[in-house]
């Protein structure tokens, strides 16, 4: 039996991450680590008129954390900042197309945390930590 979370699309994003590397003309970035497993994700964004013009990421970690980061960059490119800031755990599960379960959802949330921190930095506001995981 193949666990749902390791289906083709996720493994494909893990093996071939989209929007990986430096973003020219980025106007904000953020970086965070999951100390429990050592996953590290860094994201750069270019925000223009309340829209996410472009976004890139870099990092190392498990398939779930890397694939989520990759999928999130694809998803949020060209989207209004307000829409991305509203993303929650359930939206991530929808995006991944599978629920990684209570332990591994943390791996997916790291990418979302970093993205939200980056776009908040781009807007000159800070997201309180407890707000991020709503």
């Amino acid at each position, binding site marked *: *039996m*193949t*666990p749902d*979370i*390791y289906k083709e699309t996720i*493994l494909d994003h893990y*093996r071939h991450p989209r929007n990986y590397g430096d973003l020219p003309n980025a106007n904000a970035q953020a970086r965070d680590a999951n100390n*429990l*497993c*050592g996953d590290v994700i860094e994201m750069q964004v270019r925000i223009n008129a309340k829209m996410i013009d472009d976004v890139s990421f870099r990092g*190392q*970690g*498990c*398939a*779930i954390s890397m694939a989520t980061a990759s999928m999130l960059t694809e998803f949020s490119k060209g989207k209004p900042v307000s829409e991305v800031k509203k993303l929650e755990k359930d939206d991530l599960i929808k995006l991944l197309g599978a629920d*990684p*379960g209570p332990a*591994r959802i943390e*791996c997916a949330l790291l990418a979302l945390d970093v993205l939200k921190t980056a776009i908040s930095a781009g807007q000159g506001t800070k997201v309180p930590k407890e707000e991020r995981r709503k």
Partner: protein
Amino acid sequence: MTLNVTKIRTDFPILKRKIAGKPLVYLDNAATSQKPKAVIAAIDRYYQEYNANVHRGVHRLSEEATIAFEQSREKFARFIGAKTSKEIIFVRNATEALNLVALTWARANLRSGDRILLTEMEHHSNIVPWQMLAKEKGLRIDYVEIRDDGTLNWENFEQLIKERPKIFSLAHVSNALGTINPVRQMAREAHEMGATVIVDAAQSVPHMPVNVADLECDFLAASGHKMLAPTGIGMLYGRQDLLEHTEPLMGGGEMIKEVHLQGARWNDLPWKFEAGTPNIEGVIGLGAAVDYLTKLGMQNVREHEKDITRYAIERLANVKSLALYGTREIEKRGAVISFNLGDIHAHDLATILDTQGIAIRSGQHCAEPLMERLKVPATSRASFYIYNTRREADILVRALEKAAKMFKI
């Protein structure tokens, strides 16, 4: 066969569980062991028949509870070869045992500029308490290096011990690599240099004969839940003369002989260090666990684990792209096997194995400095115990081969 594993397996109700429709293959014993019916029943009996506080009442229930409680202490004292049960202090876990030594004996006996010697393979619980004390008192900490095969670098140890550290504290068996350290040999040299020797035996006491006199250690920390007993019970062994000259950490009931408004007199060993109502069910469960292991015979337990470790390593070594950490010499290692499969992250591997009913640990194993030394972000760890079989090692290997296929490595 050194153990009757078929019979043993019937003693552990949880092993009948199915995970995702598959029989549970529990290979996370270095994290915690499963519990046999005898331990569960002993706790049940305590609550159903003689639940009472210990060392307090003169009524029948309290007497019975106190006897069972102190008998468990004696059993454990015998189990690790302590001279007297006064040398056994009950705490919450091995971590607390190590912290207790740091906060009492070490805090009172070390001065600014003194050195503490640890090793690179220590669990965080044998690093952080010393770092905290070092910060408070201005101590210096050195670490014995490990070689690439996961054993300690003896030459490096000889150099560092000549610096005359006041404390040499090391794991008997590494929780991440399984390495068995030559504690007795090292303790001798350490003692010659005037060090006090502390052994983190959380990963050895459940798995092999351990005798504090043979190890020649001064303090030893152990954990109940890794040796069939419940969580929440840990044991500190301390040489009687050291404990007698050490002030307690916590004050309260149980640890005093007399209390007046202007002061108090401490109780005798070991109760001096056991303020407040203890974890009675945990201690009673520990007594039943010691009985169970004693009946099996710790040498038999060790032989069984050697057999399964040898077999598992042989099989794992043939899995394509699988990196094994730690020495291949069975005499020098316990039943803990750390590995990585290609570039699959340990957490991904653990999740995939979980869907096959296999429970392993993944991550840094509370040994971040060791992971840095090995230059890996994390490893997967399979750890075996008395109820594990060669067949389960086969199931692990097959599941790993499937995972490799899935990740196309």
